[in-house]
């Protein structure tokens, strides 16, 4: 990247009474990036976004945009725009007036405003609908108007609060790609706040997974998926299976643990937990192998298939291990996903390099 980041949060803290919504949080976002803030409700992601927009003032820490301290700047003076979850379209104004609102505040000449509104309507594929009122639009159209209104001032940074939450499934899927395209075409940095890991995985260049007012991990979606830093990240981003146990010995690049039920498992580990300390192994459903019991007896356990669901070319199995643990296994048809049946006894195992032992 090089140079100063577009947005820098430096040790920002915000509390409401006793509730600390954002705790000593630092974050850099470069120009022209699609960034996702991901976390469960109440993790502080919405507060963080409102701090960036200027609707809240941090109790501590500073916020910089393009190297300039904007911490004390009111929202109407920040070159940052936001798309609200409710869209917050002005109900008494036409679509065109809604979109033009930001430029009018800048006192731009009438002709320029008209031309740029037309450009925006084209960008969001709403040409010819400028005279409609918000209540005459479908949910998807309102979402586009909200996007156009937020982008027309060519902000350096666009905040999007749960941009797809109000759309139905099919529309959500298409809109994800439209948002990505809008980000590429405008070159504006997008910061999407979402609780839906699918959205973040699909759209974001990088994502931050938040919990309890702090960031657990920042990285590219694939990196976060494959190398989760904490148990929370592993469980929140994608599906996973957990095995809890104590470290019994070190292996090359990893550890071997023993679970409470006497199961011995190996996994990679990036940290150095002490022998005897508690760790959790996370293994993704697609990285679990199914075989005939007795042949591969390493790094796994025998079990019985409880359920088998076939969906979108993938077979999902719910398997009860002999230790009593329930695991989730996913196989494509090519991997032999169709050959196992409900009630069948199988051996479930995994390669240590596919699993991660997590300390936190």
């Amino acid at each position: 990247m090089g140079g100063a980041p577009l947005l820098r949060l430096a040790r920002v803290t915000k509390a409401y009474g006793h509730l600390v919504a954002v705790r000593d949080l630092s974050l850099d976002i470069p120009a022209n990036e699609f960034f996702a803030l991901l976390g469960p409700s109440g993790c502080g992601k919405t507060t963080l976004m409102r701090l960036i927009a200027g609707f809240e003032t941090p109790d501590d820490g500073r916020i910089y945009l393009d190297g300039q301290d904007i911490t004390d700047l009111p929202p109407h003076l920040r070159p940052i725009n936001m798309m609200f979850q409710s869209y917050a379209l002005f109900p008494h104004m036409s679509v065109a007036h809604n979109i033009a609102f930001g430029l009018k505040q800048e006192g731009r000449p009438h002709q320029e405003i008209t031309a740029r509104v037309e450009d925006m309507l084209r960008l969001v594929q709403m040409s010819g609908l400028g005279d409609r009122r918000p209540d005459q639009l479908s949910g998807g159209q309102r979402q586009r108007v909200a996007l156009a209104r937020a982008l027309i001032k060519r902000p350096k940074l666009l905040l999007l609060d749960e941009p797809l939450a109000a759309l139905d499934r099919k529309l959500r899927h298409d809109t994800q790609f439209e948002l990505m395209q809008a980000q590429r075409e405008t070159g504006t940095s997008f910061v999407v706040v979402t609780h839906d890991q699918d959205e973040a995985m699909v759209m974001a260049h990088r994502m931050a997974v938040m919990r309890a007012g702090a960031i657990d991990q920042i990285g590219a979606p694939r990196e976060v998926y494959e190398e989760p830093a904490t148990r929370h990240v592993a469980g929140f981003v994608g599906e996973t299976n957990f095995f809890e146990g104590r470290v019994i010995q070190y292996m090359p690049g990893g550890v071997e643990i023993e679970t409470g039920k006497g199961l011995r498992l190996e996994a990679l580990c990036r940290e150095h937990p002490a022998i005897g300390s508690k760790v959790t192994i996370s293994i993704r459903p697609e990285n679990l192998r199914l075989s005939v019991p007795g042949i591969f007896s390493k790094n796994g356990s025998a079990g019985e298939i409880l359920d088998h669901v076939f969906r979108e070319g993938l077979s999902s199995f719910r398997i009860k291990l002999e230790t009593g643990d329930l695991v989730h296994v996913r196989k494509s048809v090519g991997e032999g996903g169709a050959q196992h049946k409900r009630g069948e006894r199988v051996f479930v195992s995994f390669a240590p390099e596919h699993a991660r032992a997590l300390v936190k």
Partner: protein
Amino acid sequence: MSARAPLSGLRRMVLAAPALWLFLFFLAPFALVLKIALSKPAIAQPPYEPTFSLIEGWQALWDKIGTLSFDTFALVIGDDLYLAAYLSSLRLAAIATLLTLLIAFPLSLAMARAPKHWRTALVMLAIAPFWTSFLIRIYAWIMLLKEEGLINKLLLSLGIISTPLSIFATEGAVLIGIVYSYLPFMILPLYNALERQDPSLLEAASDLGATPLTSFWTITVPLARSGIFAGLLLVFIPAVGEFVIPDLLGGSDTLMIGRTLWNEFFDNRDWPTASAVAIFLLVLLIAPLMNYERQQMKEAVR
């Protein structure tokens, strides 16, 4: 609600109830007042003629109907006193209504923006004056406004003024009385309109670069329009015909149509003139109401 099904018996009755109400308590009395307005004053009981009855037969009744005339209306139109009273009433009511709006808007806004658990209590406070009699409250204002009243005593003792203000028995006192009495009727519709506004709209305006003042004029006020209209009508219409407040707080020179009406009825016992004055007042007030109704229809269609 697409196909228009024939009305069932029950639905007919439900629709007939308000129609019957309007007929019994509005149209029928209105017809009576209109008839009196078309009659001539008389020293009799009732103090006008003709009086309709069938005792003298159908022909006599028909002849009597023939004697009805619009003379009284012509008289009311021709007399400058009535015109002056109408204009003065409209002027005072308009000023009072605008003052009420100016006071009520910030109050309603503060109520609507107050923490949720306070709002019910604030609404109760706004309508608390209704818990005491209207007349007693107006009499209380006399005590406050008189030359030797509480306000003058206070201002004198604080040394803010050296001679007592003469507010009582002026148009100013009437305005104070109207604003005070009708404030809740302005606050309630305004509060209702403001409280429904989505706070994220103001955040969106601010986010797009609008100063708080711009947001107020481009978002808050236009979206409160229906509440403003309702409040203006609820205050203006009764204020035009107001009788008690100008009679108790106004001076002998305070000209309002409600008072003129009272004088015609009870001092002059000229029922036909009083009825004609009342009918003019009604026409005067129905015009803005119809306009409001049309606005509402337009809003609903959109």
